[in-house]
């Protein structure tokens, strides 16, 4: 069966171990963030000699139906990635107190004993990327192309500007939101948004445009500007153009979250940032030199960025969270 076995359905040994179901808010596709979540669930299943299922949704109706179906099957843990699930998890958690839920990237408003959460402080990583941009920019003009104008996504634009300004006082920043009829998929639009930044002379662009990132990279490459990726190492998509990536270790968060739940420590919220190692930059990880990232050639910049990271980790420096406004 060619129908995408790996992504969509149970794989792995059918042991007597644990069972996990991951529900995604969107198609996994090339969405690196969701891919990592899938990896996390798979790793957990493997570790427990158990089984895993992935239900991919596409809209609010299918999200609700998938969560319902997941709960009906009563696996050990239902894992949900994405803020879209907050309401439905609250409802289901109340109705099914025995069912354990793990929410990644968001949390319910109320706390439930059977809902554990893992959230990220992406802004810390973006801040560092902004600092790199500030150091590398020739004219101090940096910018971001972001999917939509929401608090969650502003974590990829505002801290980028802040980071750049931290290292280059007269840096200026601007943001473009992809928008349009399918903001997560419209790479042509994302590319044009990037072009409009490039036309202003911007030479460093943070790309948080989901599938549109590839469009941003293409635009940057054509103008010999630089871009910054998200979630995983995207440097391979456009070597020589992508400077660095704000890595979000969703797989780790999923795996650790499941362990916590199974260990009986449910109902807690774990926040991952630079300190916990859940957020990082490719340039700050091992194997920079093999990453194809531009930053590998700028060890001096990395030095300064490492220093900033240490300040954030120690609490000496705090990065504003736009989503908390």
């Amino acid at each position, binding site marked *: 069966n060619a129908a995408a076995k790996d992504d*969509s359905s149970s794989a792995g040994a059918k042991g007597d171990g644990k069972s996990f179901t991951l529900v995604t808010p969107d198609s996994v596709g090339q969405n690196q963030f969701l891919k990592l979540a899938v990896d996390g669930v798979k790793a957990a299943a493997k570790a427990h000699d158990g089984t895993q299922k992935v239900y991919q949704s596409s*809209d609010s109706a*299918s999200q609700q139906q998938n969560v319902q179906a997941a709960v009906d099957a009563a696996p050990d843990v239902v894992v949900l990635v994405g803020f879209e699930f907050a309401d439905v998890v609250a409802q289901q958690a109340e*109705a099914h107190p025995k069912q354990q839920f793990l929410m990644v990237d968001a949390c319910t408003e109320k706390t439930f004993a059977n809902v554990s959460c893992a959230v990220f402080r992406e802004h810390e990583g973006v801040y560092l990327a902004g600092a790199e941009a500030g150091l590398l920019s020739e004219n101090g003009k940096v910018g971001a192309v972001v999917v*939509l104008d929401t608090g969650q996504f502003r974590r990829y634009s505002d801290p980028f500007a802040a980071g750049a300004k931290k290292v280059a006082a007269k840096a200026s920043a601007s943001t473009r939101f992809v928008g349009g009829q399918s903001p997560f998929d419209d790479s042509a639009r994302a590319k044009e948004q990037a072009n409009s930044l490039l036309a202003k002379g911007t030479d460093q662009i943070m790309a948080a445009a989901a599938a549109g990132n590839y469009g941003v990279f293409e635009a940057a490459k054509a103008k010999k500007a630089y871009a910054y990726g998200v979630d995983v190492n995207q440097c391979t998509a456009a070597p020589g153009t992508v400077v660095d990536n704000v890595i979000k270790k969703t797989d780790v968060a999923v795996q650790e979250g499941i362990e916590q739940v199974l260990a009986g420590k449910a109902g807690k919220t774990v926040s991952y940032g630079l300190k916990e190692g859940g957020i990082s930059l490719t340039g700050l990880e091992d194997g920079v030199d093999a990453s194809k990232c531009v930053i590998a050639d700028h060890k001096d910049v990395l030095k300064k960025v490492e220093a900033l990271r240490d300040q954030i980790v120690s609490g000496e420096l705090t990065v504003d969270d736009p989503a*908390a406004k």
Partner: protein
Amino acid sequence: MASAPDPARTKGAARIKEAARTKGAARRNGTARIKGALRSPVTFSVVAGLVIGALFLVGTGADPFAAYGAVVTGSLGADGIGSTLTTGTSVLGMALALAIPLRAGLINLGGDGQMVLGGIAATVTGLYSPLPAPLTVVAALLAGVLAGAAYAALAALCENRFGVPLLVSSLLLSYPATSLASYLVRYPLKEPGSSLPQTRRLPEGVALPAFGTSTVTAGLVLVVLAAGAYWFADRRTAVGYEIRMTGLNARFAAYAGVERKGLTLRLVSASGALAGLVGAIGVLSFPYRFLDGSLTAPGYTWTGLTAALLAAAAPLGTVVAAFFFAVLQVGGLSMERTTEVPRELTQVLQAIVIVFLAARLRFPRLRRRKPQDPQEPAAHEPDDPAPTAKEPASQGEFA
């Protein structure tokens, strides 16, 4: 033609003829109707869609029986029927919204915008109404209906006043409406402290009553009532008659005094009102708030439009078609969960059915019929879901 013969005599003769007709008809009607239904393009399209879908499945190495079985059990089984009825509420609501103007040959492509504005209006009313909760629900529903109707009326005015065909004006107006809603939930109406583009949750009790613990709400009752009202109006009222005639020949209706512009305005407003109602129902059901994109992303407008088209806007046909598509949608997702077959298959099925239907394909006659067979399946049965010689008005107005 001559001068009218003795009216009493003719009436008597007519009555006798009528008696004979009904008697004969009663006997043969059953089988003829069934035969007619089997040969109708709708049956052909559905069967052809299923067969082509099966070929797709075989082509990709999947088992068509397992896949279709999963669709049926997933949507109509105990676990799925609730979802099917919930989805069906929205699909039927939008199908009716689009069917009503379609009956007069008008296509409203602005369902998304009207629905979203209905949802926003209901949310604002729900959040800020000083009334007690049950009255607030009613007020919110009304607000949704009014907002949808008002916005749709704008599209109708574009056609009536500026001569921009409804098809286009409604479509173009839809985008600013969704953008506006999106703006409102991001800034003025945004839930404080949330990173999501969503409003606050409606106050406790401001919700449509649900059936037991299911997600099925009184919204279903509302749209079914709307369907009933539409059926009645279509079959038994002078207005319904005027609408049908306008759909069949707009100039004819205008000649007899049916005011085209007024009718357009009323029908499109009614359409928008229903779309707004669907939006309001969406907000007054779980999760009881307006979340940007959640009303439009499932594509109820398009599914509703296809259902209305499949039924040629006939009331009962629209209900059946809407339910059929709700089954496909919910069942498709369930099929994907259990059999690894991509749910896009059901989308493909849905489109293929419409393609075949629009192309007016039907099963070939198996035996030769006598010419002028009086039992020829009544093509004019108002509820026959086959589109009979119906040209959308928009076509002629183009360019």
